C-alpha cells in the first residue's frame, strides 16, 4: 500500500486535517472521511456532474480530482449553500419550480448553477442551458432546472447589490 499523505482542506469554512492514500478521490474524501454525503457519485469518469463542487471558486468534478490535490484548498459543497435559517435562492427556486424529482443530481446542479451565476449574473435562457449541459438529470428533462436558475438569478443579483 502506498504511503499516506497528510492534507489540510477547508470545506464550507471548516478546516479538516486528514491522512489519505494518494489514490483516494476528492469525492470519496468528502463523503467517507468528512461525512459530507451531499455530493454524489454517478459515474466516476467525469461525465454526469453529480460530483460537482467548488474548489477555490471554480466548479470542478470531484471524481476526477485526487484528495491530495485539494491540500490547502478551499472547497464549497452543497451543504455550504444554505444559511442556517434560510435556503439559498437557488434552493428555493428549485423547490418552487419542481426542478428535482429523485434529487440525486441536484447537489451537482446547484453547485454548477451557483458558480455559473457568480460569473454570469444575468444570463439568457440559452446561456443557462449551455452552462448546465455538463450535468445529467434523468428525471426532470432539464426545463424546470433552467427555469429555476433563471428565477433565482435576479434575486441573487439584488441580494449581492445590497451587500
Amino acid at each position: 500500500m502506498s504511503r499516506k499523505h497528510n492534507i489540510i482542506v477547508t470545506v464550507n469554512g471548516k478546516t479538516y486535517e486528514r491522512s489519505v492514500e494518494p489514490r483516494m478521490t476528492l469525492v470519496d474524501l468528502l463523503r467517507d472521511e468528512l461525512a459530507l454525503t451531499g455530493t454524489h457519485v454517478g459515474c466516476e469518469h467525469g461525465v454526469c456532474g453529480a460530483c460537482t463542487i467548488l474548489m477555490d471558486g471554480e466548479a470542478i468534478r470531484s471524481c476526477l480530482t485526487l484528495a491530495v490535490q485539494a491540500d490547502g484548498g478551499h472547497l464549497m459543497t452543497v451543504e455550504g449553500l444554505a444559511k442556517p435559517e434560510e435556503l439559498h435562492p437557488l434552493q428555493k427556486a428549485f423547490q418552487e419550480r419542481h426542478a428535482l424529482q429523485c434529487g440525486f443530481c441536484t447537489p451537482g446542479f446547484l453547485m454548477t448553477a451557483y458558480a455559473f451565476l457568480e460569473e454570469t449574473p444575468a444570463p439568457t435562457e440559452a446561456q443557462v442551458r449551455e452552462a448546465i449541459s455538463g450535468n445529467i438529470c434523468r428525471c426532470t428533462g432539464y426545463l424546470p432546472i433552467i427555469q429555476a436558475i433563471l428565477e433565482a438569478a435576479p434575486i441573487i443579483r439584488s441580494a449581492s447589490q445590497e451587500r
Partner: protein
Amino acid sequence: MKPAPFEYFAPQNLPEALELLEQYGEEAKILAGGQSLMPLMNLRLARPKVVIDINRLSELQYIAPGSNGDLAVGALTRQRTVERSDFVQRENPLLAATIPLVSHAQIRNRGTIGGRIAHADPAAELPALSVALGAEFTARSARGQRVIQSQDFFLGYMTTALQPTELLTEIHIPAWDPGFGWAVGEVSRREGDFALVGAIVLLRLDENGACENARIVLFGVGAAPVRMRKAEEMLRGRRADGKAIAEAAGIVSEDLQPDSDLHASAEYRKEVGGTLTRRSLVEAISRAREATKR
C-alpha cells in the same frame, strides 16, 4: 471504479518534476488537469506505478504575448484561463472560438492546454487546432529541451513524439495574420462531446480573391489530426468560388481514410468530412473577404 495503487509525487518546481520523470520514465504518468487521465485511472485502463502531479508548477501557467504578435502559452495553463483571456479574444479569434467547444466548463476549469495536447485524442479539438495554427511545442527533460513542430507531434492514436522522460512545457503559437479567414466546425452527437468529425480551416485571399496559404485540418477521422494537403494544394491560386470549394471538399472526402466505430462508419466520416470542409471553407472565405476589405 477506483484507481489502482500508485506512488504520488507533487514536485514544487520544474527541475524537480523533470528529475522525477528521468527517474521513473515509462512507469510514470503526468497528472495535470486530470480530466483525461483520471477517467482512465478510475477505469483501471491506466495503471501507472507513479503519478507526478505537476499542478504546483506555477511557472508553467502563463499567457505571454511575444514581440511580433506571437503567443506563448504555458502547458499548465487552464483551458478556462485561455478562454477568458482578453488577449486571446482580441488577437486569435480561431483559438477563442475553439476553446469553448472543448467539453464543458467544469472540465475546462481544471483541464490544461498542455494536457489536452499531450493526451492526443484524435477527436479532440486542441491537437487539430495546434496543427492548423502551425504551433510549436517545447519539450523539456532533465537533460535538455527541444522544439517539436505540431505537424510532427501527433504520431498516432493517443501517441505523441514526447519521450517518457519529457514534459511538454510550452505551446508557441505564431502571430495571427489579420488577413486570415477562419472557421471551426464539428459534428458531435451532443454539444460538448468529442467530435464525430471536425474541421478547422485557415486561409488568406490575395487582392484578386484567390486562395493563398490554405490550411485544412480534419479531426475525428483517423488516429491523429490530418492536414488535407492535396485539397490545400488544389486551392492555391484558385479563385475562392463555389466550384473551388466543392472541388476541395470532394478531394477531402476522397482522401480521408477514417476508422469505423460504434458512433459512425468510415463512410459517414468521409462524407461528413467533405461536408464540414465545404461549410468551413464558405465561412472562412467570407471572413477572409471581410478581412481584406479592412
